């Protein structure tokens, strides 16, 4: 059962990631990334991380990717065209990624025996266990990230707002279809 679920949702992950790579329109890439993230949430459940599974869907699929699709729609992004720069990336990119993958897979397979098995059920980490670690032992890092979020909000607002009055036309141009 566990193995079947792993292969189904792992397959979804890989298919979604490959689709992200192959699609030329940003909105299709964004949708395949949503598939990857939602399937990852199921894999987190299989690994006993129920809170993270829910947060993965809420934060990644429900907030971050909504922002991405929002920006794609707002800027009316078109299919990307191939240019000279991408040739070099084709030659360097694929071998580099393949070499990285081969190295990582070799290490994981050679150490596979010592890593043991993931079993469904007994190793579930409950939300209260997670929060007691987060709010007792790691309180300072938690507070620091909240400051980080605040700075990020301020930065985003400062970056995206208009500075000069004549920039108004560029905003309407983005929505034009």
């Amino acid at each position, binding site marked *: 059962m566990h193995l079947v679920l792993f292969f189904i949702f792992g397959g979804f992950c890989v298919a979604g990631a490959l689709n992200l790579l192959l699609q030329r329109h940003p*909105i299709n890439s964004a*949708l395949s990334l*949503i598939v990857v993230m*939602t399937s990852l*949430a199921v894999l987190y459940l299989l690994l006993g991380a*129920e*809170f993270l*599974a*829910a*947060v993965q*869907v*809420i934060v990644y*699929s*429900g*907030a971050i990717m*909504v*922002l991405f*699709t*929002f920006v794609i*729609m*707002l800027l009316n992004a078109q299919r990307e065209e191939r240019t000279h720069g991408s040739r070099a990336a084709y030659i360097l990119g694929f071998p580099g990624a393949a070499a990285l993958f081969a190295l990582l897979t070799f290490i994981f397979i050679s150490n596979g025996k010592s890593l043991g098995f993931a079993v469904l059920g007994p190793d*579930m980490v*409950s*939300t*209260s266990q997670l929060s007691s670690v987060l709010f007792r032992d790691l309180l300072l890092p938690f507070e620091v990230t909240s400051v980080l979020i605040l700075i990020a909000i301020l930065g985003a607002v400062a970056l995206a707002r208009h500075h000069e009055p004549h920039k108004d036309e560029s905003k309407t141009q983005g*929505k034009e*279809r």
Partner: protein
Amino acid sequence: MNFWWFLLLSIIKIAVVLVILLTAVAYTVLLERKVVGRIQNRWGPSRVGPFGLLQPLADGLKLFLKEDLLPTAVYKPLYILAPVIALACALTSIAVVPFGADIKFKGVDLFQIANVNIGLLVILAVTSVGVYGIALSGWSSNNKYSLLGALRSSAQLVSYELALGLSLVGVVLRAGSLNLRTIVDVQATHGALSWNIFGGFQIVAFFVYLTAAYAETNRTPFDLPEAESELTAGYHTEYSSMKFAMFFMSEYANMITVSCVATLLFLGGWSSPFGHLFPSFGPVIDAILPVFWFVAKVFFFLFVYIWVRGTLPRFRYDQLMGFGWKVLLPVAIANIVVTSLWLGFTRPL
């Protein structure tokens, strides 16, 4: 718990809940037309069947028989996928809602499809994915009204989701759990006096939740994504026939889910308002009575939805965003601070 019993009962439960939910959706539409009609001093639908009771059937049949137009300029895969996403997310979130007391048959919960430890988060997660239905429908229609509606809707949903989530934290703090059954059990001790809205002092959170939920479901006074005076029909301008019906059904199914969550979190779910005042009426009545209370409370929320629609005018878009960020969010945060201070002083660790 036998696996095959579990599978069989689960499938039966899913089928029954789906049928009831879709019927409830159809009759919520009728209720809305009737109540809004009475508010505006007219009769509402009254010709089809007694009191217009067969009107939903006639509407469904009409939409089913309409020609399914596919405009030439649309981006086809997403245009077809969008209503499916919207309806699927609207129907999925009901799966973790408990409808009645914890009664087991062969080890399977009778009144809940899935009892999940993180039930509340599951509802938030599924509804947060539902925004793609609206966003993609607007984008793929290749129509400026649809696109504007979709942009408005996704911005509105992302902003109000914060206030919505934060308003629920007070309830979760009080119950100490994200499990919907535990949250209800905490409120079931002294009848209506121990409900979160009264005894839990979560009345501020209740109103923040209700306001944010109206914005999440795109209902008046926050129905800017489909404001007919500015955007014809908003994101579903280009949709016809069953695809349009799917958007329509998803909107009402979302309303029902929101009402269910409000009932569970603030009005004590299936627990009786009289607590344990009356003696037990025997096992069968004891099983059915909680379901009756639950349905009555959900019906009350649906009525409030329609009442608000018949009463309030629509917001302007900048007012909507300003209200979400500058009023609802600070109030929700203040509620969390006050609730946690109060719990910290009254309930020492």
